């Protein structure tokens, strides 16, 4: 449906802002605020410093494991590779 405005220029910023405000004033949450749920959700996760420390520890463990594994099987940039010309020279 086309809406014709009296001045022929369409709605001004004020009118759009007013319409927006009227509309947003009507929005109501179906549930909440629920303080008990908030406390429950907040207690589910450990505090942020603990999460960061645990993540760092896991990352260090993964890296160490990778280094140990790659050294054991002798692959990767730390492997004791001899280049082909060096081998030919022997």
């Amino acid at each position, binding site marked *: *449906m086309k809406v014709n405005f009296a001045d022929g220029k*369409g709605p001004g910023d004020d009118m*759009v802002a007013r319409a927006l405000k009227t*509309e*947003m004033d009507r929005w109501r*949450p179906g549930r909440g*605020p629920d303080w008990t749920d908030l406390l429950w959700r*907040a207690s589910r996760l450990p505090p942020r410093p603990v999460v960061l420390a645990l993540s760092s520890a896991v990352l260090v463990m993964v890296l160490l494991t990778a280094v140990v594994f790659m050294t054991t099987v002798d692959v990767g940039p730390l492997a004791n590779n001899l280049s082909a010309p060096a081998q030919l020279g022997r």
Partner: protein
Amino acid sequence: MPRPDLDPVTQFRELYERDYVAVFRTVYAIVLDRGEAEDLAQESFVRAYRARHTYQPSAPVGAWLHRIAVNLALSHLRRRKLSRFLPVRLYTGPERDPHEQSDARSLVEQALAELTPKLRAVVALHYYQGYTREEIASLLGIPSGTVASRMAKAMLIMRRRLESGGPGDQLLEPARSRS
């Protein structure tokens, strides 16, 4: 009359009950889904509660809450968008018929739906929550000029959408010509 600020450390519950609906409305304006907006508004307060000791009183507490909520809503929409490209459907969001959803929406909501989430965030913060351009810039961590250009672009799109009209619109009735 401006509302007195509350201390999030000692008065968080009061703050939560006072500002929950305002935060919900901002989040709803960004995600345009009631269920998701309720979850995200609650999650915003959970994050604020967990970080309440880090709150710096240099900015109003409402701005701090809205910063958390807007960032959470925008991240949520980014994740939802990315999830569409996943080979395995990990995201199981609400599936709705877009035509049905569009019909149920008011004209203002339809106009908002034509904006990008970042434009919707700026519109909600300025035209509903009443934050200034500088406050929004500080809140979103973007230059003030970017806020101004987003506001102008959003208004242009919304004006066009509201002018073209739609079924069930009542808000612009007084401005319509009688011919």
